[in-house]
């Protein structure tokens, strides 16, 4: 636990020292929303949901992609001598989940300001969205650990993660639509359970597989 907290603090510190990278991600969100706003002007409600998730997915991919790639060569080996792999992975997972939660809220906020917000049940929209973002962040974290080993990192990042992310996206977009229409929340309980189950599944698989990725 102590090690985990140190690692987590370390992640936040690293990010803070490279504030321009963090700023870049946030600016990325703002500019994509602005491009969408300039091309659409008026966004129909259903497209609002689709746009929101597409932009969030791209911003998330960019944000998480650097989580392993920014490591200096040999740095993994250094960590390897210090901490067990699962603890290292868990610190990364928690940090990336936090980062993506911020991006999720930011995307929603900027979209609401620029193009308006048609969602009827915003609490449910953000809650179910967050469960989806959690799953996406786990998938992206493991894929970035995989892609980091290869030469063509940024292409691989998209190619490897997008098809795997689809089940999460399909479920979460369903619940977003439900929130958009302001339907009774109980309608979505079984979807939310399914989504949480997928989250747990990918976390378990990531924890099982990560030790193999990291011995180099």
């Amino acid at each position, binding site marked *: 636990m102590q090690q985990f907290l140190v690692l987590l603090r370390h992640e936040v510190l690293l990010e803070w020292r490279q504030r321009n990278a963090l700023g870049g991600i946030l600016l990325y969100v703002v500019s994509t929303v602005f491009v969408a706003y300039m091309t659409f002007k008026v966004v129909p409600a259903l497209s609002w949901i689709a746009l929101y998730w597409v932009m969030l997915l791209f911003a998330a991919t960019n944000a998480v992609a650097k989580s392993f790639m920014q490591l200096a060569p040999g740095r993994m080996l250094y960590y390897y001598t210090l901490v067990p792999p699962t603890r290292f992975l868990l610190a990364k997972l928690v940090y990336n989940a936090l980062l993506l939660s911020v991006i999720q809220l930011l995307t929603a906020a900027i979209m609401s300001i620029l193009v308006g917000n048609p969602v009827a049940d915003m609490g449910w929209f953000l809650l179910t969205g967050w469960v989806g973002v959690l799953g996406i962040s786990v*998938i992206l974290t*493991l*894929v970035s650990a*995989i892609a980091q*080993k*290869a*030469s*063509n990192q940024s292409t*691989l990042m998209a*190619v*490897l993660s*997008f*098809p*795997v992310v*689809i*089940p999460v996206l*399909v*479920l979460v977009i*369903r619940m977003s639509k439900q929130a958009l229409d302001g339907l009774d929340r109980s309608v979505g309980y079984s979807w939310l359970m*399914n989504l949480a*189950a*997928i989250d747990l*599944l*990918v976390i378990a*698989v*990531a924890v099982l*597989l990560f030790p*193999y*990725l990291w011995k*180099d």
Partner: protein
Amino acid sequence: MMKNWYKWVAGILLLYTVWFGLMGEVPRKVVLNESIRNLYFHVPMWFGMIIILAASVWNSVKYLQTSQLKYDLRAESTAKVGILYGVLGLITGMLWAQYTWGEWWSSDPKQNTSAIALLIYLAYLVLRGSFNESAQRARIGAVYNIFAFAALIPLLFILPRLTDSLHPGNGGNPGFGAYDLDGRMRAVFYPAVLGWTFLGFWLVNLRNRIQTLRMKNEEA
């Protein structure tokens, strides 16, 4: 002879499937008519694909346990044959859909799921292609293979149940249940599944042997 039993079984069952699949009696159904025979060729592709891809994951797990490159070779061969079956399944399905649903692609959940499955395994090949060192390629490929298969499972079970589908066996459409009652079709369908699956493993076996020879050649 004993080692090759499944090749004989595959040959005999497929001859049986093609002959009775095309010549045997089938129930007359509205819309479906003779296209119902696609059951013997299209559906076994999916059964075969899932079984062969499961074998691929199993080989990847074995590789991570033992670090022996022969398991990695098998994982790659099985994934490639799985992709071949997936493509064939998609083509036979689309041909059938054009004549019964009137569209090549109608955003049916089963069509989408299978397209995503193909994307995942093509990505697996791209990933493998971007490593030069065979041990690293094998290890990281194995990790992605297992991860992707685990992520595919919810897709196969959840996605088709969320939406209504035109596909037989879904949402009030004439499903397999109705045909399964027909003993004549069942007598061809089950052997067909077995035959196509064995043929897939034969292909895997051939590819393994070719690759092994190629590797020996390079070393020599």
